[in-house]
């Protein structure tokens, strides 16, 4: 019974690793979609309505995957950090399921939001959305291809290790 439970534990662990990696691809896709929404809302709030950046960050706090970014950024700004620094540091701390280029695209917005006039902010937001939409297409492909691969790899690795050990 112990051997069987051990085998089950080994199999489950390795499979879980594979599924977790596959889940990361799904979360990345969802996160990119959420950011697309957030940037669109940013364009509306900051550029169309001229609302304060703090209101935008407060709105971000209500969004599932972006809440931690909004919260951390708001807190840093209240401690008189420049927006760019606060934004980049909040993105770095949030542990978002995004690749380096995707994070870089978002981080660059720190040089524009709240600092440039609304027309230039709009250009920055639209350009970021365009780049994110390209990443979204790639992320969808990755999810289908690599997501399945990692799931299968996890299960196969589990089976292989169980067979080798037992």
């Amino acid at each position: 019974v112990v051997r069987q439970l051990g085998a089950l534990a080994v199999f489950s662990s390795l499979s879980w690793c594979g599924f977790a990696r596959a889940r990361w691809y799904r979360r990345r896709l969802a996160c990119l979609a959420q950011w697309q929404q957030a940037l669109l809302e940013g364009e509306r709030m900051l550029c169309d309505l001229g609302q304060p950046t703090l209101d935008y960050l407060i709105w971000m706090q209500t969004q599932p995957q972006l809440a931690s970014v909004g919260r951390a950024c708001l807190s840093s700004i209240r401690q008189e950090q420049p927006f760019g620094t606060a934004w980049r540091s909040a993105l770095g701390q949030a542990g978002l399921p995004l690749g380096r280029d995707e994070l870089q695209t978002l981080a660059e917005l720190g040089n524009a939001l709240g600092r440039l006039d609304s027309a230039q902010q709009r250009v920055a937001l639209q350009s970021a959305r365009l780049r994110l939409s390209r990443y979204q297409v790639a992320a969808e492909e990755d999810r289908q291809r690599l997501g399945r691969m990692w799931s299968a790899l996890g299960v196969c690795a589990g089976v292989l290790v169980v067979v080798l050990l037992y």
Partner: protein
Amino acid sequence: MEDQAFLNCVQILPRPLRTALMGWQEGRSECWEEIRLRVERGISVHAGGPEQPILLGGKPLLPTQQDLYAVIELATQSSYQSAEHSLRTGYFTLRGGHRIGVTGTASLREGQLSAFQALSSLNIRIARSHPGIAGSLEQKLLERGRFPGTLIVSPPGAGKTTLLRELVRLLSDGCGLRVGLADERGEVAALWHGVPQLSVGASTDVLDGCPKAEGMLLLLRSMNPQILAADEITAPADVEAITICANCGVSVLATAHAATVEELQRRPLYRSLLEQRVFRRIIRISRGERGGRIYAMEPLSW
């Protein structure tokens, strides 16, 4: 007692500059009217006389370009877009009515200033309420129970806005008249979430953020004022709106940049206003020997 207006203004300075200024002021800030920051040239304060440079260890404190950007960022709470409309006219107003004037290399879009590529100077004008400054005028405000159209004139920086605010307060609270205040720049009442930060009286209706001309006509239509007040008549549209209001039986209280009536009459914009007899009297502001203001109310003769 702490000088709250000064404290509000220094809050928008980057920490090192703020600390230096706080250390330097040593209770002298109450007479300060302006704090000026010039890139690589120093920080100075203006208290009526010549500018006083701020020294740190005997050396002038030299703000950098980044310091000026930091001031804008702190003052707008990282929301340039919210102050953008106002910044296009070269200034923006803070909570409390303090005003920051901006100069530098302008960036134009469609022939209009859209932003500043590089900042050169900032001028932080500290807004203060001075209840009682118009005490000498209080008894003369009404003539046969009516407030005649009055124009406050002085060169820039002499305290027109401060006097306007105080007269509006006196007319509203003291005389019980309904005053409509077209506060385009938000300097007179300094509305914050609908509440005036500077006292303008209980019977005063304030419209801020709206061009003066439109604002006055809107107030005329919607609030049935007995007196309309506006700061700094500068455009033909303002003159036209004032004339319409005066012809509707509303008394106008306004300010204009000029040292004397003769100077006003030389300028076509004001000449037409004077010729139409919208204003029955003027109040001239001059500085006394010790920096205080002297107000002289005179009837306008034709």
